């Protein structure tokens, strides 16, 4: 089970968040949206220029910039 920054995850990959490294407003926003340790997420895709990234969490779709996704560490599942 690998731990990756969300930025490095590939499309359709899923995993569980283990930690959020951001603080301040960014950290708060990320957490307010439910991206906290224990949340399962799946990468839906990326914008045409590879940035931002769209992911699914708790039943809804969220978009984040790559430099924001950097702060989110995810334990990815083995490829199915």
């Amino acid at each position: 089970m690998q731990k990756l920054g969300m930025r490095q995850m590939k499309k359709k990959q899923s995993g569980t968040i283990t930690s959020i490294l951001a603080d301040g407003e960014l950290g708060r926003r990320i957490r307010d949206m439910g991206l906290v340790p224990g949340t399962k997420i799946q990468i839906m895709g990326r914008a045409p220029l590879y940035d931002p990234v769209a992911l699914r969490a708790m039943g809804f779709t969220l978009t984040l910039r790559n430099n924001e996704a950097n702060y989110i560490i995810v334990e990815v599942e083995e490829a199915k």
Partner: protein
Amino acid sequence: MNATIALAGNPNSGKTTLFNELTGARQHVGNYPGVTVEKKEGTYKQDDISLKIVDLPGTYSLTAYSLEEVVARDFLVQEKPETVIDIVDASNLERNLYLMLQFMELGIPVCMALNMIDVSEKRGIEIDTKKLSELLGIPVVPTIARTGKGKQELMKAAADLVGSNTKPLPLEISYGDDIDNALAEMEVMITDAMFLTQTYPARWTALKYLENDEQIRSIGDAKNPGLSAKLKKITDRVSSHISNTLNTYPEAVIADHRYGYIRSIIRQDVITYQQDQDRLRISDKIDRIVTNRFAGPLLMIAIIFGLYQFTFTYSETPVGWLESFFGWVGGIAETNLPDGLVKSLIISGIIDGVGGVLGFVPLIMFMFLGISLLEDSGYLARVAFMLDRVFRIFGLHGSSVMAFIVSGGIAGGCAVPGVMATRTLKSPKERLATLLTVPFMNCGAKLPVFVLLIAAFFAENKAMMMFIITLIAWGGALLAAKFLRMTVIKGASTPFIMELPPYHLPTFKGLAIHTWERTWQYIKKAGTVILGISIILWAMMTFPGLPETQTQIFEQQRQTLLSAAPSAVVAEIEAPDGKKDDETEISEPAQQLNDKLLAVDRVEAETALKHSIAGRFGTALEGLTQFAGFDWRTNIALVGGFAAKEVVVSTLGTAYSLGEVDPEEIGSLSDVLANDPGWNPLVAFSLIIFTIFYAPCFVAVVCIAREAGSWKWGAFSMVFNTVIAFILSITVYQIGSIIL
């Protein structure tokens, strides 16, 4: 029962729909005092219940990081509504509960509207509302706001809550030992000193200190600096302890525990899934294509171009009808009113002025319909998603996309709400760059100008021309933003965390309302502001009239012509129904005489026009504007455009009408321009460029000055934009003249 109910919830949870359902037409839109956050109020009446409903801004949380959240919680703790209805998206229960908990921590009586349960059921999400209600200790009512289902039960529950008059105890969640102990310690100090206890629960205040809440801290500093300092010291102590032991910080721990609490509730069989939740939904499948690397941008271009094509094609007939209508009205006025100033005012000032702007209403309406469709369906969020990276290259932000579109990025908008939409951008650099460049967009007022010129000179390629105009506007805005960014100070970037709501088939009702609201605004503006300005401009183009000496000269010329002609011919023209009856065939010599007389009239009218205040002003500017291909009439129109961009069209209408002396030649303004020797496609294109870029209208300038914080920026936007406009149009015209 006389009570106030606050409506709260996440964005996209159906809050607005529910508010409309509950209040119907009994709504009033205003602002929260001192800020430009929308405040909607209305009344709910059913049987013997009459409740005031206040729609709070949609938020995901109640932090101090955004204006909307602060406004929401200030309203709750200061106005103290008797009950809050939290609208929860049933498909998103977990995340929606995060906000719910914060209401409960504040000790506010709250009940839940579990909305869009039809959607969640279709997705195989079953919620045990009874269990949920028990575990939370609050009423939970399933609703479908779109159809009104559950409305009455919801309001009954709310009314019951109000009636029961119980103040629930603030919810106390455990945040782990470290924080819980600190909270206890701080709570005692706060209660003893009665520190802000009138407004906030003690534990809540303590929690805010630990969360580094800027608003509460500054209120605390002001109220009781000594205690505030002590509380901060405790916070620092806990922070460093948590940092050392857990490698995190209090605000994070608190957020994590809130979700932990939520999960503990959910896990008690509140939700059952009948379907695999990881399955791709229709929205996801659509997004696969819509935001695809290649298909995405192509689709975006196709959609926008398609919108223009649709608009121009289907509005052509109705616009034609309106043009005929105004022509007909003008004709009646022409025949029935006695010659004189009043007649001129009515025909040239009002009918040809305002008519020029109103004539485009069908086109404007189709444009708005298209935009509403894109918005309501959720597509625009995808546009922002795709363009964020591009915008960042130019120093802007994905959210700037929305500000641009609101300002008329696709077509028909207004820079004023666009400028205000920049409030969500925290970085001063991003904000300033955005709000100074949104005026370049195709606002609803500029549309008539473009459409007029396109119809007159680019009739073969209307949609394409419109598309080119849009590209020029965006290109110019992005480049200007980049330029500005290089000269404005740096600032921290705003996070771009945005929810992509599922695609949603817009309701016919919603589309109709949005389209009509904007169209009506356009019409109202034409009938009020544009009308007023047209009258004033007519006056400036009529006075001072030609001096006696001049009019005498023209009269002399006419007399000379008449005496030179054979009396039979003269008799033909001066027959009672002579000039006015265009069905009677008049002889060749009579026709020639008529033409010559009209020519004299025309020169007289033009001389008079040039002699007026506006004419002299326009002529004076010609020294500069001739390089861009503009003559004095266009100059007057452009100056008028400072008041409102539609005025460019209405002024041209008046100016050419005043110069038009043959009542049989009633053509639409585009026909007049197309046939005028002073105009050609290059001049038109140069004027289009100028219109895209030059100074924003007065109202927008005021708004910019206000939002940017100083009149300096308002003046800057006027000067900077106009200079760019001149440089570009002169360049275009000069180069065009050489090539073509």
